[in-house]
């Protein structure tokens, strides 16, 4: 039973929490504001910025200056591709571990997790070398494969925890009701597993979209996704605040929206089920 609290106390909570929330969110909000200003007004003091006229011109200029949509589509292809490739490999594995557990299941899961802990920089050169030899450097295919591999443990883990939550009695009920193995999978298991798979997909697209080690080191002009493209603003061009802001807003907006939908899954996915 939650206890009733006084309205004054609730108002105080609200005020403090909103203040903190706005401070934390402010940088994102400010970038959004700057993206709607001209280059000249974006560098003015904050109050003058707010008074300056609003405009969408920066969004157009970003595309003109460099092929923004190429990088955007690179991001989409790499993030979505690596996630579905990973799903293809992970679903059978997680399925087997959840429904036919053996003594080794736990060790295999922990070992998979341990590969996630491998510091990327420790294997940077070998991967770089292999990519050169195989002609994968600066290719979307190469990056898709690498991102699939680094996120595979998380995909397997998340699916495993979701699959394990499907109660065994329901599968037994389906068998008692006369369902064959195929029907059991088709009519009972799959519909029950879909929400878990959807959350897994969501979280992994976010992780792949934001990955910024391999994308920076393994791509150049051709296959660079948004992470690498934005990094190119780090040199003098960074002084174009309005354009940088517009490019940033477009880069983070889709993932911010997806992220809000996946708060719960985030906890499960990133703590490997250790916190629920």
């Amino acid at each position, binding site marked *: 039973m939650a206890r009733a609290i006084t309205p004054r106390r609730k108002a105080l909570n609200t005020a403090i929490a909103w203040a903190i929330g706005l401070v934390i969110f402010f940088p994102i909000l400010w970038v959004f504001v700057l993206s709607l200003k001209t280059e000249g007004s974006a560098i003015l003091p904050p109050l003058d910025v707010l008074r300056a006229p609003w405009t969408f011109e920066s969004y157009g200029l970003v595309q003109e200056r460099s092929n923004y949509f190429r990088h955007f589509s690179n991001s989409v292809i790499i993030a979505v591709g690596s996630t579905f490739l990973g799903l293809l490999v992970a679903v059978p594995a997680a399925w087997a571990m959840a429904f036919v557990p053996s003594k080794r299941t736990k060790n295999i899961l922990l070992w998979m997790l341990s590969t996630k802990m491998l510091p990327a920089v420790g294997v940077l050169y*070998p991967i770089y070398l292999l990519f050169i030899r195989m002609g994968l450097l600066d290719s979307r295919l190469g990056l898709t494969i690498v991102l699939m591999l680094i996120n595979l443990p998380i995909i397997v883990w998340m699916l495993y925890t979701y699959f394990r939550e499907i109660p065994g009695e329901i599968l037994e009920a389906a068998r008692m009701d006369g369902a064959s193995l195929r029907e059991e999978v088709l009519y009972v298991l799959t519909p029950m597993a879909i929400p878990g798979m959807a959350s897994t997909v969501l979280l992994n697209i976010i992780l792949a979209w934001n990955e910024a080690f391999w994308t920076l080191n393994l791509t150049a002009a051709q296959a660079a996704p948004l992470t690498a493209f934005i990094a190119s603003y780090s040199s003098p061009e960074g002084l174009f605040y309005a354009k940088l802001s517009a490019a940033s807003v477009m880069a983070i907006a889709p993932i911010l929206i997806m992220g809000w939908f996946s708060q719960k899954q985030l906890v499960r996915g990133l703590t490997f089920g250790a916190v629920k």
Partner: protein
Amino acid sequence: MATQHSRSAARLMMAPAVTLLLGWMLVPLTMTLYFSFKQYLPMRGGDLGWVGFDNYVRFVSSSAFWPSVQATLVLVGGVLVITVVLGVALALLLDQPMWGQGVVRVLVIAPFFVMPTVSALLWKNMFLDPVNGFFAHILKAVGLAPIEFLSQYSLVSIILIVSWQWLPFATLILLTATQSLDSEQLEAAEMDGARWPSRFIFIILPHLSRAITVVILIQTIFLLGIFAEIFVTTQGSFGTRTLTYLIFQRVLESQNVGLGSAGGVYAIILANIVAIFLMRVVGKNLDA
């Protein structure tokens, strides 16, 4: 319950994932180990033969090594302290009844979804820039001299950026853990005469301890690998060259692969030490 037949089917289903990860782990790891015992300079003569543990000794004895260890420790430690302390506070606050709880939660969590290069550049240019940055404007407005954050307080600035990115993660996990605390436990403690500080120390903190451990371990693993934030801001200058960044410079910038690989092996060992603790926590949960 499982029959022999389903066991072999299960093994077959796991095979692709296991094979891929095994390859992903073993191939590059073996190569790194191999290079670490070689004098290998791709731009200046290529493979110059075996050198034993030379690279390992040289990596540790180079003048850049200890400062990089120090920078790594300060960065990781600083971010951990900030995110855990503020994370616990925020989690407790967000667990209180209020209006617009969902919206506040969304505001707090948002930075986690901003890609590292964007958040680094956003802070570097729009906030920390000594001429046009938000903070510079504020300082000028109150009559103070603007601060060159990224050169004068470089490591602190990076800690700030990284903490901003990871505070949502800590908050979210600690909030989830807070919500699972049985409110009757707190009421029982209250009936037993425990005031708020005692309830926090004796009930809430112990309840959160597991989640805090998980936050610390997972963040440590990610923080040890922080790269993009340094890459787009200071490029490792002004005392922000962490171990990860040092290895990156050795390998790709100065193309001294042997030396960098030895550093990579150190990084792998370091990460594994943290990982062992994390595995214990996670493994225990698997049994439950």
